[in-house]
C-alpha cells in the first residue's frame, strides 16, 4: 500500500475509529484521539504485514484495542474492557455498520427524521458541544428532562441506522 493510499485510509476511517476508541476508553475524547493517532502510526509501520484481503478498519480497531490495553497496563487506574465486552461492542458496531465512513451520512439522514423536540435536544447538546446543564438552560428545560430526551433520541437513531443498513451501498 502506498503512502497516498494510506492517507486515504486515514481520511476515510479516522472518524469511525475515534468513535470506537471513545467507546472502549469510556468516552474520553482526548484519550481516544491519541490512541487513534498511535494506532495509525503503528499501522503504517506494520503495513507490510497487513493482509490486503482483510477489512482494514477491523485490523485498525484491533490495533486500537491493543493500544488501549497498553495504556491500561501502564496506568492501574485505567481498566480495559473484558474480551466479552469488546466482542459485544464489535458486534453492535457491525450491526449498524458504524465501522464504515458512510455511517455519518446515514446518521445525518436519521437525524432529519427525529421528532422536533428530540432533534432540538440533539442539535443543542451535540452540535453545540455544550454540557448537559448548559444545553438544558438553552432549551429551557431541566437537566433530567434533557438526559431523557437524548436517550430517546439515541435509541431512535440507532433503530433508524439498523433499518437503513441494507439500503445504503
Amino acid at each position, binding site marked *: 500500500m502506498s503512502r497516498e493510499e494510506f492517507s486515504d485510509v486515514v481520511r476515510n476511517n479516522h*472518524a469511525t475509529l475515534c468513535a470506537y476508541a471513545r467507546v472502549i476508553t469510556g468516552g474520553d475524547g482526548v484519550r481516544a484521539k491519541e490512541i487513534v493517532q498511535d494506532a495509525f502510526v503503528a499501522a*503504517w509501520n506494520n503495513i507490510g504485514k497487513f493482509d490486503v484481503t482483510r477489512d482494514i478498519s477491523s485490523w485498525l480497531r484491533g490495533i486500537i484495542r491493543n493500544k488501549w490495553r497498553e495504556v491500561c497496563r501502564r496506568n492501574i487506574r485505567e481498566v480495559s474492557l473484558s474480551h466479552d*465486552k469488546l466482542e*459485544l461492542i464489535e458486534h453492535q458496531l457491525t450491526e449498524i455498520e458504524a465501522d464504515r465512513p458512510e455511517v455519518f451520512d446515514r446518521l445525518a439522514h436519521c437525524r432529519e427524521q427525529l421528532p422536533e423536540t428530540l432533534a432540538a435536544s440533539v442539535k443543542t447538546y451535540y*452540535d453545540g458541544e455544550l454540557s448537559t446543564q448548559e444545553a438544558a438552560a438553552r432549551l429551557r428545560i431541566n437537566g433530567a428532562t434533557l438526559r431523557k430526551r437524548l436517550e430517546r433520541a439515541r435509541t431512535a437513531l440507532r433503530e433508524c441506522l439498523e433499518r437503513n443498513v441494507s439500503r445504503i451501498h
Partner: protein
Amino acid sequence: MKSQEECYQDDLMDCLLKEQARKDREQVICEIEHAIMSQTLAQAREHPTVDWKRLILSGAVAAAVVLGFGYILGASLHPKLEGPHTNTGEDSEKLIPMWVTYRVEYVGMDKELETKLPREIAYKRPIAPVLLNKKEDRQNTSFPEMAISAFSPYDDDPSRFSTAETEQPRPVLVTQFPGKLVDQNWRTPLTQPLSSFSLDSENASYANIRHVICEGLPVSENLVLIEECINAFSYDYPAPRGDQDFTLNANILTCPWNDRHMLIKIGIQGRAMSASDNSNVSSLIAKDAAIQIEFNPQRVESYRLIGYALCLSDEERTAAGGSSCLDIHAGHQVTAIYEVIPLRPVFAAPKPGQRLKYQAAAPSPHSASRVQEWLTLKLNYQDPENGESRLQQAALKGEAIMWHHADVDSRFASTVALFGMKLRGMDGLEGITWDHVLAMAQYDTTISPHQDRGEFISLVKALKSRQR
C-alpha cells in the same frame, strides 16, 4: 434498568454523535499525518539507506569528467553561476518554528476590561491555544476565574466552560491580515530591468495557512504571503567557503504551469557561525544587506516576482526600486522565485544615467557572453565589524532544465509557489487544479530529510478534497 448491551448501544450512539459534531476534523487528520511522518523520519535516521540513484549519478558525472567531455557538456546544458561560489555541500538543519498568531476579538466583553486584555497571542502548534489560563496572563487583569476558563475554544472538556446565565465572551480567530494585498506585476527588462526582494525569511503566513486549513476554514487570499510559504522550508544550498559570507545560488527550470514560461529560483545562503563571531550576540554577519537583480532583455521578455505582494501604499516605494535593507545573522537563508517569459535577443539603448550591464550604448567585445546571461545577482552589505561595504555578485547563464529533471529543492519550492499562487487566486493558472499541485508535491517519492514537506502534502490533499 438497562441491560449491559443496551448501555453499550447507548454509549456507541453517544460517541458517534460526538464524532459527527467534531469541528477539528482536519486538524485531527493533519496531526495523524504529522505523527506518521515524524515516525518515518525517525526510522530513516536510525536506518539510513544508500541513495543508489545519487550514487550512480555521481559515478557517471565523475566518469564524464575523466573522459574530458563532461565539463563541456555540462556547461552547455546546465546553467551555472559565474562568480565566487562553492560546491561544498554542508547540510544544515534549520528548525522551523511553527507558531500561529491569533488576533483576538472579545465578544460581549466589558469594554474597560477588554482594554487590559491581549490583542494578539501566539501559540506553538500543535498545542491548542488556552487563552488567559496562564498565571502570567491573569496577573494584570481582575478577570473572573470562570470567564477565564471559558477562553478555551478548542478544549474538549465541556466542564471547563462556565455555566453562568450570561453568555461568556469567547475569542474569535481572525484569519486574515488587514488591508488588500496586490501581487507583483509583470515587468519588462527594457523599461524595468532591476528587481529586488526583501532578504527577510519570515514564515508566519504559512503557519497561519496551515492552521486555517487544518481547522477546515476557507483560506482568505489576504492571509497568503507566498514568499513566507516558500521560506517556511529549508533548501540545500552550498555553504560559503573560506572568508565568503554568502553563496548566491540560482537555477532556471521550465515552468510546470505554463509551457511558454520558465522559473528562476534564487537562493542566498549565509555562512554558519564561526569561531570569530561574538557568541554573546546572535552572530551578525552582514548589516544593511540588500539584493538587486538585473534582468537581461536579450533573454527575458518579461518577468514577475512570485510573492512579495504589496499593500497599496507600498507600490510607489517598490516602483522606485527600493527594498528594505536587513541585518543578517549566521546561517540565514532566503529563497525567491521569478516567473520569466524568455525572449530572443533584442537590443535597446539604456536610459540616461543608468549603468546597466546588458543595455550598453554600443555593442562591446563582451556582449556575446552577456547575451547568454539571464540575469545578474548583486548582494550589497556592510561588514558588521568595520562597516566596510561589500559586494557579491554572480550571473546566471545556460538553458532551462526540464522541471522533472531539476533538483528536488527546485521542484518543491516551485510547488509551494504554485500552492500560494492558487490560494491567492493569481492569474495565469487557468486549468491548474489542486490535483496538479498534489502531483507535483508527490513527485519525489523518496523520503525527504525535511519532515515538514510531508505535512505540506497533507495540506494540499485537504485543499484537493475541498474542490470536489
